[in-house]
């Protein structure tokens, strides 16, 4: 059991997606309840201790936490693709710049969230980062959707100060999308007016990719059996 809130907690706070997933996997309600109790205790403790913080409202905190998770997901993908993807120079140059931007966004969001920030999480891109075409398609989709998501969130933010910061990210994400679309051979823009994408829709999409993985258990509390 992890001792910190999982990235899934932020993406799926009500646990609906997780519950349906567990049911699909055939995990019984007792196990689910026990796991949920343990998880909820950790999660609630984390939230309670952060209730008073940097002056963000709960609403704005929820939005920024989600964005931080999304930034981590994207930033890690660019880093991995650069290491594994055997990218063409044009794709590599874009990934180096866009990836650095996403890490910078993540750093800024982490800073403002303070102790309410979610940890980076553990991602499994299922071969996407080793394949240039798959990586490029995924990157375009994420950049498009991130711009659409920020549009959805902007009008829901309580704080004008947070809004001022968020819109400075929004235009950058739109430029990322246009840049990567051009490299992918897709028109940079199709419509005169963009539609927003809801946070719930984005969450479902992220969960459907199975990119967000649970941390492997690399620690244990048991006596070693090493040779000594």
């Amino acid at each position, binding site marked *: 059991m992890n001792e910190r809130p999982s990235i899934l907690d932020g993406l799926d706070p009500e646990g609906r997606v997780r519950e349906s997933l567990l049911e699909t996997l055939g995990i019984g309600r007792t196990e689910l309840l026990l796991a949920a109790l343990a998880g909820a205790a950790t999660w609630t403790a984390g939230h309670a201790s952060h209730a008073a913080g940097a002056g963000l409202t709960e609403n704005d905190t929820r939005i920024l936490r989600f964005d931080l998770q999304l930034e981590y997901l994207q930033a890690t993908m*660019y*880093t*991995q693709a*650069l*290491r*594994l993807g055997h990218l063409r120079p044009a794709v590599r*140059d874009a*990934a*180096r*710049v866009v*990836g*650095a*931007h996403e*890490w*910078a*966004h993540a*750093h*800024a*969001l982490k*800073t*403002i969230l303070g102790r309410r920030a979610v940890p980076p999480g*553990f*991602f*499994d*891109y299922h*071969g996407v*980062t*080793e*394949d240039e075409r798959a990586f490029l398609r995924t990157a375009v989709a994420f950049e498009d959707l991130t711009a659409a998501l920020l549009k959805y969130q902007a009008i829901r933010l309580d*704080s*004008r*100060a*947070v*809004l*001022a*910061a968020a819109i*400075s*990210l929004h235009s950058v994400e739109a430029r990322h999308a246009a840049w990567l679309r051009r490299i992918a051979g897709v028109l940079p823009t199709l419509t005169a007016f963009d539609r927003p994408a809801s946070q719930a829709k984005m969450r479902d999409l992220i969960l459907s990719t199975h990119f967000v*993985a649970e941390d*492997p*258990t*690399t*620690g*244990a*509390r*048991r*006596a*070693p*059996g*090493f*040779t*000594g």
Partner: protein
Amino acid sequence: MRNRRPVIAAVLTAATMVSAAALAVVALHGRGAPAAGDSAPGGTRMAHLSADAAALAPPAKPAFTVATPRPLRLSSRVSMWAPVILPTVARARPRAHAHIVARISTRTPEGTTNILLALGVRRDAMHRLWVHVRLPILPTNTTGWVRRTALGGYRFVRTRLVVDLHALEATLYQGRKALFHAPVGVGAIGTATPVGRFYIRDRLTRYASPFYGPIAFGTSARSPVLTDWPAGGYIGIHGTNEPKLIPGRISHGCIRLRNADIRRLATLMPIGTPVAIESGR
């Protein structure tokens, strides 16, 4: 090609002249003749716009700003590991029918997730992805190829641990910078610590065994001598209840540190860190 040049030049000259004429007409029209229905002179219109701009609400100071980052640079001193999520086999080559080198389970003898240090990736003729991995088996330094689908997501580490069996010292590096340095106890004659390339697999804590000190790291190294050891004869890096014996050649192959040193190492060395055990001669 030569005959076309004068034609292209003539066309460009004509196009430039037409454009210049059009710009002149637009400029004259804009200065002297207001558009129909627009009675306000240009100066008044600008004054309105200036007044509108001045009457705007004051700006909100952004809650956060993002510094201009430098493009990502990839250091060659980064290692990569991945958990084994499906039982699988490691093959000698990245081919479906290549010789099987080892069977890989999803768990270590300590009950933790089995992980493999990834050395590279390659596609086969069927476009299937294979990962070249370092294997926790004998003989030491054995590598093999496993299907990407058997592994979870990659993790990256910037650290590497070097154990010098001659100097009886362990040094943890990040890049070229030494983060940690301490004397160690290593395998005695007859149960020598194996020389080679390995990695950290897991970390055990809060057990009731003073012999191993407060923390024990499991490595992918196996004793070539104690092959019938109950848990497989894996080599650990751990604390001790006999600190006076360090440094020395005292163990069954494990690398022992004083308890204060293993505690400090545990704050610096992540899982997946490559371990080079060198003879030092």
